[in-house]
């Protein structure tokens, strides 16, 4: 390349840098401060721009794209309101460790600080909700910053970054610097390889365990498909029982014989009891979130804990561990599997026999059971049928946030990583539909279903328009109980059944709504018709809104009430009105 080839405008630099970082799709919404970049998008074909209907949708779509592919998701927004609307997905991506690059327009450098039209302090506002961010003040630094943005977003513990580009920088001519081929000298150098001594000690501790458990999380998925393969190998070798957080579902197959189901507040009885009673806990790429631990001081009181995490700040943050291993899950698991194989004396099968017998007795409680009905569709039944109908298909599931999300995690069996997209850390209602669009963009032939609630779906319903425009045949399966179900459940538990503002009055006719957008609407309120309607939904090659009317007052169990320990779960068969009303004490009531 000659020097003149390297000279281009800031907007051209943006497009070239995106291409050089392997970007094929960006999700965005134009506006005054990004017009030069949109003009460049218009004049090229390598990168496809997906026009959303709200910047929040762009962010969640980029998240869905990233989580289903392992690639970096890219969003493009304008200054001011464009950037502030991006805050929710940025924080969402930060909490769930999703690699995201957000490019935002900014008012010209000469106007910064003057309260100009559509000006906001984007780097100031997004500082706490990104891994790192930049305000570009020199066009010659633009390419280097974008390359660094991609490196930071996807390395170490992945996360969102923002590159804020003033309009005059987009117009200015500067030099394009190519992507560095050798490792960059910078203060940011995440540690990938775990300490071998610590891994050896962990393997020895595991080999001595009588009541072991593997507690896995989103870190396994983030580490890539090889980490999931190694995890399966480790389970095969050790015959340890395995559970996972909401974020880690799919890294070990739900059909696997060692699978205990999801753990945590709405996790299975067997997984939570096993966490409580284990003697060796191996935490792999999870972070002892409060939804997982329940009351921290009663959390797994008699276990020795091993914690594998790429982020050193996750170690000892809420739960003290005995053996921390800082490194990438994939790399550490590789060493762990190798060292386990090299053990001079492997534990006898009998060593964990009693433990497995105990686990079987917990399993026999069938904590996800529910009372089915022939008159109304039970939400759990609807998901069981949906799962049945999608077996054997290349299915990706996204969710909104609430009861339907927990039921989806409980009743949908995930066999592979990267097929389950949900907002875990931030709990963002409105995540599911745009995330599904992002997934469908990345996997045009796949069956992409957003399992939704009637309240959540209305938070980003405008993206139906995006689905139609870009021919993204996502299926929105609404478990419609005409309540904000999880809010209502908590009001029943905590606030004397006073259902303040949790009933969704003036519900739209979802079938007509679908039709208004040019999509297909389906309605079902009869359990006998459910299978046929689901088949119909799957067969349609268009976006579908499926209004599945379910039992209005069904609640999500089992549940660890706030302020309780893992072994104080509320099971479905014990959840009488009285038990529900007294489940949470005065102190637990202050928690969320």
């Amino acid at each position, binding site marked *: 390349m000659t020097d003149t080839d390297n000279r281009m405008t800031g907007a051209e630099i943006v497009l070239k840098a995106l291409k050089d970082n392997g970007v094929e799709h960006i999700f965005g919404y134009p506006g005054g401060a990004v017009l030069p970049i949109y003009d460049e998008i218009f004049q090229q074909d390598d990168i496809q721009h997906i026009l959303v209907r709200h910047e929040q949708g762009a962010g969640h779509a980029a998240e869905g794209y990233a989580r289903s592919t392992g690639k970096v998701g890219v969003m493009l927004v304008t200054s001011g309101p464009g950037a502030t609307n991006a805050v929710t997905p940025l924080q969402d991506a930060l909490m769930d460790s999703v690699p995201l690059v957000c490019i935002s327009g900014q008012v010209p450098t000469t106007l910064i600080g003057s309260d100009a039209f559509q000006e906001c302090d984007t780097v100031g506002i997004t500082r706490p909700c990104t891994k790192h961010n930049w305000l570009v003040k020199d066009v010659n630094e633009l390419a280097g910053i974008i390359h660094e943005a991609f490196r930071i977003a996807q390395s170490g513990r992945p996360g969102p970054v923002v590159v804020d580009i003033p309009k005059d920088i987009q117009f200015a001519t500067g030099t394009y610097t190519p992507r560095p081929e050798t490792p960059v000298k910078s203060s940011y150098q995440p540690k990938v390889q775990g300490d071998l001594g610590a891994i050896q000690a962990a393997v020895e501790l595991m080999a001595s365990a009588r009541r072991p458990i593997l507690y896995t999380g989103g870190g396994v998925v983030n580490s890539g498909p090889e980490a999931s393969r190694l995890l399966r190998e480790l389970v095969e070798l050790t015959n340890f029982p395995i559970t996972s957080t909401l974020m880690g579902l799919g890294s070990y197959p739900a059909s696997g014989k060692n699978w205990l189901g999801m753990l945590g507040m709405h996790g299975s009885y067997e997984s939570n009891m096993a966490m409580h009673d284990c003697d060796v806990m191996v935490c792999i790429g999870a972070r002892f979130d409060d939804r997982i631990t329940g009351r921290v001081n009663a959390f797994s*009181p008699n276990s020795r804990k091993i914690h594998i995490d790429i982020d050193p700040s996750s170690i000892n943050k809420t739960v003290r561990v005995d053996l921390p291993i800082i490194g990438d899950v994939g790399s550490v698991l590789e060493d762990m599997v190798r060292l386990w194989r090299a053990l001079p004396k492997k534990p006898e099968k009998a060593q964990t026999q009693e433990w497995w017998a105990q686990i079987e007795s917990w399993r026999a409680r069938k904590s996800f059971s529910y009372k089915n009905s022939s008159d109304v569709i039970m939400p759990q039944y609807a998901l069981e049928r949906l799962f049945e109908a999608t077996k054997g298909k290349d299915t990706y599931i996204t969710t909104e946030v609430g009861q339907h999300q927990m039921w989806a995690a409980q009743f949908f069996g995930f066999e592979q990583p990267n097929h389950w997209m949900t907002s875990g850390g931030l709990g963002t209602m409105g995540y599911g539909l745009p995330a599904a669009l992002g997934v469908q963009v990345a996997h045009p032939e796949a069956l992409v279903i957003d399992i939704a609630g009637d309240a959540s779906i209305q938070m980003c319903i405008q993206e139906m328009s995006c689905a139609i425009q870009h021919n993204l045949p996502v299926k929105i399966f609404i478990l419609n109980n005409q309540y904000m179900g999880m809010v209502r459940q908590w009001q029943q538990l905590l606030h004397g059944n006073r259902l303040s503002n949790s009933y969704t009055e003036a519900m739209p006719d979802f079938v007509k709504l679908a039709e208004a957008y040019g999509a297909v609407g389906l309605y079902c309120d009869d359990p006998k018709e459910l299978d046929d309607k689901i088949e119909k939904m799957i067969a349609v090659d268009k976006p579908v809104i499926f209004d599945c009317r379910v039992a209005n007052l069904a609640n999500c169990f089992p549940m660890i009430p706030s302020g309780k320990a893992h072994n104080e779960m509320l099971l479905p068969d014990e959840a009488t009105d009285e038990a529900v009303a007294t489940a949470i004490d005065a102190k637990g009531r202050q928690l969320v």
Partner: protein
Amino acid sequence: MNAHQQPTGSAYFISPETEKVESHTLSILVSNEPGVLARVIGLFSGRGYNIESLTVSETEHEAHLSRITIVTRGTPHVLEQIKAQLERIVPVHRVVDLTVRARDLGQERPIEREVALIKVVGQGERRAETLRLADAFHAKVVDATVEHFILEITGKSSKIDQFVAVVKPLGLVEVCRTGIAAMNRGPQGM
């Protein structure tokens, strides 16, 4: 492991620490770039940590490095988290807990010094008394008229606290303190 802790009913926060709260001095080496101080301070306010003293200045011009010295309070567990969280900030190069390092080196505390400028206005015997005290505390007169003195004093924070207290009745008008600059004793660098 956590069984020894007292039950609190909290599913959220770490149960009340039985560990004692300590004051530690942290040295943070950062790239001297826009916003880096905001990142560090934002971390403290966002996660509810305390700042008792904060000093920042460029220390290596060629390498574009600044050194931030923060005195913070917390239990050993919280202090460990603060260090780990600081190390996550992209332009942060190194974080050293000088208090922990001093202990490891068998020393009581790192060397900690502060500079203060102190303006005292007065006449007659009070002026003479001000100068006597300044002399006793090794404070220098850096500006004076017939009505006032500005005194410069260097030392541990406790020494400056004490000096401020004694000159207060003599016509103290204004105090400006730099915050703490700190370093570990011995030949090793940070």
